[in-house]
């Protein structure tokens, strides 16, 4: 038996981040409380930056590594770069100390003397940093996985820290814990489906590698029962992760209950990672069965857009509106899967890039609107914000317009690319549904804008706090990216399209 070969250099982005996560656990154990925050933030940012550097070093790599279990190609490079950029911005929000977003000690009872003591002694939540790094490590591996085992392990490394992070909120702790519980139970439920599907795919192909499954599909035509069962259940697991209907019901609850910086991180990073894996599996592994899966994905895409946009209209909480908007965007992104052509890959990657910046920026602004009790997420209390703090309201408007897909914002560029890819492939139904859903969605985005500018401010203590540098940087970067990608997108489009190639089968 030859010794297995691991290409450490090419896997470096994943390895660096995971090594830093392990190191961060040691920091939690040995560094005294006073210095932990400084050490943890330094370590996390350094790890993400180093990861980004190694991704850039890999930019010309294309092939299968680690005994064929990881595929690093143009698509992986773009996705890993995107994930690391969003992780960096998300970490900036998490590192914000002024808002006390995270409970000092997650194990203390809400409202107990222990909690008061932990608060009074100025304890800082720093365990969130290793958890974030683990999640980022899993997210980096997830779209690169070329083997069912790697895919499953990456999925869990990505998900398990997020379950805990969702329950860490300092204010409204019961709500936050409940979000953690729901996310965990439904996530574990879906990963059981994912696993059972993997078992049947393995039974069908006799191997767990994507290449083996692909080969089996191309060499033995016909719909094998094992293949169909396996594929259906694997898809359920993936659809849950991207919060597509009818597996979306966890999204609003978790987005609302989780601490807002975590919501921002989760909304951007997990969406990129999950759609990355989605792309690889549907475009390469089971690309030979496109006539089988395309009608199903079309139906799910249309359903997801419809549910996301229609239910969002009735929401009264800004975080829930954004959660339903995230669901609708999953529907739009699924049209990129439906397209199943060369431009579909590039369009999906571009959409993920534009969407991530916008959603991170939106949630960053949600952390700024506060009263004495913490964040104000009730939409009615946002009225008149435009008169009170025009700059923040203006930037928020920019993000909302980008989410709606108005021209001259990044959202339009992404939507245009993804719908034209689907149109090119001849799937008109999904394009029509997408345009209709965008029109309906524009209604509730504009409604928030109207609320901010044309209603009178309420005198109930709601105010926009002055952001500290870390949050300000995040908002600034996201706003600039949203504008630049909207006005002058061509260099980025070219770069993404030139890289958007899967490794040859």
């Amino acid at each position: 038996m030859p010794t297995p070969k691991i290409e450490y250099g090419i896997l470096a982005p994943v390895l660096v981040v995971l090594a830093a996560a392990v190191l961060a656990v040691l920091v939690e154990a040995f560094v005294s409380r006073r210095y932990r925050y400084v050490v943890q933030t330094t370590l996390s940012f350094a790890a993400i930056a180093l990861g980004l550097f190694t991704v850039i070093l890999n930019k010309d790599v294309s092939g299968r590594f680690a005994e064929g279990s990881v595929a690093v190609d143009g698509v992986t490079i773009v996705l890993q770069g995107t994930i690391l950029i969003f992780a960096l911005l998300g970490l900036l929000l998490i590192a914000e100390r002024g808002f006390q977003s995270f409970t000092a000690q997650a194990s203390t009872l809400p409202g107990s003397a222990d909690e008061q003591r932990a608060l009074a002694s100025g304890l800082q939540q720093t365990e969130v940093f290793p958890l974030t790094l683990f999640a980022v490590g899993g997210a980096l591996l997830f779209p690169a996985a070329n083997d069912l085992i790697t895919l499953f392990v990456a999925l869990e490394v990505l998900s398990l820290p997020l379950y805990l992070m969702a329950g860490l909120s300092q204010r409204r702790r019961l709500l936050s814990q409940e979000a953690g519980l729901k996310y965990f139970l439904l996530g574990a439920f879906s990963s059981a489906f994912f696993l059972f599907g993997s078992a049947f795919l393995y039974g069908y192909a006799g191997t767990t590698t994507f290449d083996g499954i692909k080969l089996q599909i191309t060499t033995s035509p016909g719909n094998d029962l094992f293949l169909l069962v396996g594929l259906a259940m694997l898809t359920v697991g993936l659809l849950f992760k991207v919060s597509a209907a009818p597996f979306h019901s966890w999204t609003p609850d978790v987005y609302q209950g989780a601490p807002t910086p975590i919501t921002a991180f989760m909304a951007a990073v997990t969406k990129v990672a999950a759609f990355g894996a989605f792309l690889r599996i549907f475009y390469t592994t089971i690309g030979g069965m496109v006539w089988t899966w395309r009608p199903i994905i079309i139906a799910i895409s249309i359903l997801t857009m419809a549910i996301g946009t229609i239910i969002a209209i009735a929401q009264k909480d800004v975080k829930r509106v954004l959660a339903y908007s995230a669901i609708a965007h999953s529907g739009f992104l699924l049209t990129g899967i439906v397209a199943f052509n060369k431009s579909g890959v590039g369009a999906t990657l571009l959409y993920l890039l534009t969407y991530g910046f916008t959603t991170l920026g939106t949630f960053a602004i949600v952390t700024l609107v506060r009263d004495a009790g913490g964040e104000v997420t009730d939409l009615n209390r946002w009225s008149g914000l435009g008169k009170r703090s025009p700059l923040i309201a203006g930037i928020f408007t920019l993000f909302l317009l980008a989410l709606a897909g108005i021209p001259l914002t990044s959202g339009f560029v992404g939507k245009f690319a993804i719908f034209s890819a689907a149109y090119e492939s001849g799937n008109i139904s999904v394009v029509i549904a997408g345009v209709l859903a965008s029109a309906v969605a524009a209604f509730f985005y504009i409604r928030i804008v109207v609320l901010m500018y044309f209603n009178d401010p309420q005198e109930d203590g709601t105010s926009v706090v002055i952001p500290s540098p870390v949050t300000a940087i995040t908002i600034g970067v996201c706003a600039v990216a949203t504008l630049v990608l909207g006005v002058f997108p061509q260099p980025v489009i070219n770069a993404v399209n030139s890289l958007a190639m899967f490794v040859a089968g």
Partner: protein
Amino acid sequence: MNPYVPILVIGAIGFGFAIISVVAGYLTGPRRYNRAKAEAYECGIEPTPPAAGGGRFPIKYFLTAMLFIIFDIEIVFLYPWAVSFDQLGLFGIVEMFLFILTVFVAYTYVWRRGGLEWD
């Protein structure tokens, strides 16, 4: 050489170790009798009467049990490795060393954070 000879040898070593430990403990250990010594179980819970709170286990068991499960299950990876480590050469040893190192990182975290203390 008969392939079963190494098994016999390791059996003898194990048996000898057990006997030597017991005898050494008997010969060298201090003897201080007290009530706890005379009880049925020196460690663990008393079978009767039920614990306070209607026979429920204290929450401390939860932590210990969880830690046990984690470290217990991680060892599962040692089995396939043990079967083929002679063919994997240096690579296998380095990789397993790294794996055990990460498990120990978790262990030190638990230890430093007081997860192994009962009170």
